[in-house]
Every structure is written in C-alpha cells, then in structure tokens.
C-alpha cells in the first residue's frame, strides 16, 4: 500500500513538469499578450513593461528562471494585478474555493448518494423514478441557470437568503453550495444507482440474501462498498473539476475564489497567474486522483488483497 502511494507520488513529478512546460509555452503562443488593452499601447511602453517582467529575455531563459523560482516556492508576480504575487492570490482564493467545493461535495454526496442507493433498492418503481427524474433535472440545469433561478426564488421573491457574497452575510454560503453541488449530485445518483444494481446482482449478494441476512445489512455491509466504486472513480476528477469549474458559480454569486482567478487569468493572459494556478491545480488533481484510486482499491475486495500483498 505505502509502496503504491510512494510510486504514484514519484510519478507525479514528471506529470507536473510536463504540465508546467506545456502550459508555459502554450500561454506564450496564444494570441494577445498580458499588456494588450483596448487603447493601443505605444511600442516603447510595451517594451518597458515586458522588460519589467523579464519577458524580453529569450524564451528558454524565461523558462529556466521560472523553474528556478518555482523550486523556491515563488510563483512570480501577477501581470494583471501589479503589486500582487501569484502566491498571495492563490492563498487568498483557494480557501474560499476549497470551502465552496467541500460544501458542494457534501451536498452532492448527500443528495446524490442517497437518491442513487434508494433508487437501486427498488428498481423500476416510484422509489426509483422519482429521485432519478429529479437527478436528471439536476443535470439539465447548468449552474448558470440553476444559480439565477435559486437567487430569484430564495433571494428576491422570498427574500430569505442573500443574493451574493461569501462569508459577508449569514447564509450567503447556502445558495452557491447547492448550485455547485446539484450538477454533481445528479452524476453521483446515476453512477451510484448503476453501480449498486451491478453489485446487487452479483452472486455473493444473492447468496447473502438467500442466507436470510437482513436487507439493510446486505445493503450496507456487503453492497455499498462495491456499488459505489464508479462513484469513487468519478469523485477524484470531480473534486478537482469542482475547483476549476466553480468559476460560473463564483461569478454568479460574486465569490472571491480561485475558480474566478483561474479563468480571469486566462482571459487576461496573465502568464504567471495562469501557470501558478495550473501548477497548483495539477498538484490537486494528481492528489485527488490518487486518493480516489486508493479508495476504489480499498472498496474493491480483490484489489485490496493485491495491495495487502505488497
């Protein structure tokens, strides 16, 4: 087990290096530079700006300098926000997005997991159709639609909850968490139901049932683990996606999170900020994918035996 984790962490190093390298050159070939603006910038001014941020050096030299800084934990200054370092921006945005992502995940797992498991227990009955139909509506509702609808209903017509902000007014975290979580809840419900049905039809479950074990015991002790494997495989990328994909929700609710910084940086061609957030995100993705693989292995009795052997 520990060996497995160690190997995967070692593998992460080339992964992140490749991500950095590709992104570094990708952003520089993309049309439009960080200092282009609506009013034309005179050539001399642009040259001075590029000199301030060392963009006048040969590409390879810039790349080496970047790696060097990165090795020292320095992600460089933001081009768009003079006076702010990328480290500082990430430190400001990440806790907000992580908190939002966590709540959203709780919403998703709570609602989605419950719906999926319930539905799988009595397939093709009302207990199946009703939660599943709701889940499907959840998928259909992209967050740019669900967010405003919730705001209109709870924020404006009912006037129960704040329409925007994060941690400013009590209750302002509820609507964004639900909005972000809903789409994932639907996925989890569907994947969970399918996975559970798969497991419930397996021989060993049928044996357990035939032995007359109580139904809940069959479900919780024997099926849940195996049935939720696809959900877990989905969770790793989903959580990382939650962080990157929170952009829409953060924009609707004016939340100062990393998702917004990430997308804004791409729009602004804020090279260091794009690179910084990408590096940060790739570390998260590697970690979460690893975590979800470990979880999946733990849930799968056969694979677990394999790990035990090492």
């Amino acid at each position, binding site marked *: 087990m520990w060996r497995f984790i160690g*190997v995967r962490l070692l*593998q*992460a190093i*080339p*992964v*992140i290096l*490749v*991500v950095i390298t*590709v*992104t570094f050159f*990708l*952003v520089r*070939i*993309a*049309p439009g530079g960080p200092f282009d603006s609506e009013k034309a910038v005179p050539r001399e001014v642009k040259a001075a700006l590029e000199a301030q941020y060392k963009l006048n050096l040969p590409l390879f030299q810039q790349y080496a300098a970047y790696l060097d800084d990165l090795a020292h934990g320095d992600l460089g200054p933001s081009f768009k926000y003079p006076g702010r370092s990328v480290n500082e921006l990430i430190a400001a945005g990440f806790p907000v997005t992580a908190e939002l992502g966590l709540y959203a995940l709780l919403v998703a797992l709570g609602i989605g997991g419950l719906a999926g498991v319930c539905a799988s227990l009595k397939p093709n009955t009302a207990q199946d159709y009703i939660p*599943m*139909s709701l889940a*499907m509506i959840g*998928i*259909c509702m*992209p967050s*740019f*639609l669900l967010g*405003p*609808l919730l705001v*209109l209903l709870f924020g404006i017509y009912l006037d129960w909850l704040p329409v925007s902000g994060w941690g400013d007014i009590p209750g302002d975290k509820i609507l964004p968490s639900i909005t972000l979580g809903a789409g994932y809840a*639907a*996925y989890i419900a*569907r*994947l969970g*139901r*399918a*996975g559970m*049905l*798969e497991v419930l*039809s*397996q*021989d060993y479950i049928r044996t357990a049932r035939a032995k007359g074990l109580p139904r809940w015991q069959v479900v919780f002790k024997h099926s849940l683990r195996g049935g939720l*494997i*696809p959900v877990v*495989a*989905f969770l*790793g*990328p989903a959580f*990382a996606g939650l962080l990157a994909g929170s952009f829409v929700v953060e924009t609707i609710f004016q939340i100062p999170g990393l998702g917004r910084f*990430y*997308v804004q940086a*791409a*729009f602004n061609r804020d090279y260091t900020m*794009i690179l910084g957030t*990408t590096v940060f*995100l*790739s570390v998260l*993705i*590697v970690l979460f*994918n690893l975590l979800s693989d470990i979880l*999946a292995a733990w849930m799968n009795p*056969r*694979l677990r035996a*394999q790990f035990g052997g090492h």
Partner: protein
Amino acid sequence: MNARAIDDIARAEQGTSLWKDAWLRLRKNHLAVFGLVILALFVIIALLTPWIAPYSYQAQDLELGASGPSAAHWLGTDIFGRDLMTQIMYGGRISLAVGFVATAVALLIGVTWGAIAGYVGGRTDAVMMRLVDILYALPFMIFIVLLTVVFGRNMLLLFLAIGAVEWLTMARIMRGQVQSLRQQEFVEAAISLGLSPATLIRRHLVPNALGPIIVYTTLTIPNVMLLEAFLSFLGLGIQPPQTSWGLLISYGAETMEEYPWLLIFPGVALTLTLFSLNFLGDGLRDALDVRGAKD
C-alpha cells in the same frame, strides 16, 4: 469455472446473439422504447428541418421583437422577432450532431484507452493514466483559444475539442471497471482458454463494464451540448445566425424574468432529450446485463 463464464464463452463463439438478445429484451422495456421513439422523432425533425420549419431562421422582424406564444408563433419569438420554434428546430440539428458525434469520439477514445490501461496494467497503465492526469491539468481555455486561432472555425474542430476533454473521465471509469473485472474468475478462465487480449477486451471486458459506461455516456451528451455553448463563447463552434440549444438556453437565461418562454422551450427540448437518453440508457444497460438476464 462457473456457469457464467461458460455461457460467456459460448456466446463469444456465436458472436451477434448477445446484441440480438439485448434487442429483444429492450423491446419489452416500455420506458426505453419511449426514449428511443422520442430520440428518433427528434433526429427525424432535425433532418427534415430545412423543409418543414415554419419560418426562415434568419428573417427578423425587429418591430415585433420578443413576443410570447401566439397562433402565428406557437412558441413565441426572440428579441429579433424570429420564430422560436424554427430556432429550436435548427438548434436541434447542431446540438444533436454535437452531442452524438462528440460523445462518440469521447466514448471511443475513453473506452479503448481505459480498457487497455486497465487490462495491461503495470508500467503501460501508469504511463497511460498519468497522461490522463496531465490532460486534466492543462488549461483547457487557452488550448481552445489556440485551436481557434490556428485552425479557424470549423465543426470538426468542435467535435475534437469536446471529445478531447470528455474522454478523460470515461477512461478513468473504464479502467476501474476493467481492473476489477480482470481479477474475476471468468476472465482468468477465458485467458487460460487462449483468447487473444483484443477479443477478450471486446467480447468480455467491455460488455461487462457497460453499465457505468452507458450511464456516464447518457450524462455526457447533454453536458456536451452545453459545453458547445461555452466554446462558442470562446470563438469556437457555431456563429450567428446559426444557433444551438445550448446557445438558446444561455441567451434565455439572461432574460428569464422578462421573456421566460425563451428559456423554457429550449430547456424543454434539452430536458426531453436527456430523459429519453436516460430511459434508453437504463434500458440498454438492463438489456445487456448478462447476469440480470438469468434471473
């Protein structure tokens, strides 16, 4: 060797009978048939749209502007006074094409990739899956912007771009499934009987992993339709006056309070498609479920 493995091997020798059986079972599932009928209807409408659309999709009537449903315009008109029903019909052509083709691309790459990685395992698996990690981490937006600039605007690129992101999760799910199936007795039995890996993957691993894959696919299609709207925003994808359901919904969302019909009707079209897909997907899953069939 258990009964199922023998059954599977026997089936493998007969080839098509798995699909034939599945079709027979699918026909008995009313919801799945309903889904299939609706989808077929949508596809037919999409194909015939240029001949049956009530209005031109370009012609504007600025004086009329946005108007609610009426006898002349059953689903109302948009802010340019264009017939919404016509817009939805033309939008369906694009959305259905994008949804199915891009998802097919993602499915093909993702399932193959995941199956090989999961089956072969070891170093190959590690390299293949770390590549997936890399692709997850790259800034997608910059990639799209570059694509549009280098290749200009075309539909093929749109399919590729969407396929390129959507296959990643597919590959992860497939790999997980294959990995767990790989350890099962019937697979080991098949290997010991000397089946080639390709046949094994195609005949046994893929069909047995189909459940979650089908479900994920049916979820991906509507997602892809909405992703198309975002790509259009970045300059990839389609251009006005062409339209799609994703675009109609995102325009409609902006004025949901003033002109709700502009959001509701395209939303209904997308929702209906999604429901049909899911009914059909569940039906397919059940119909293809080897074990379920033995009950």
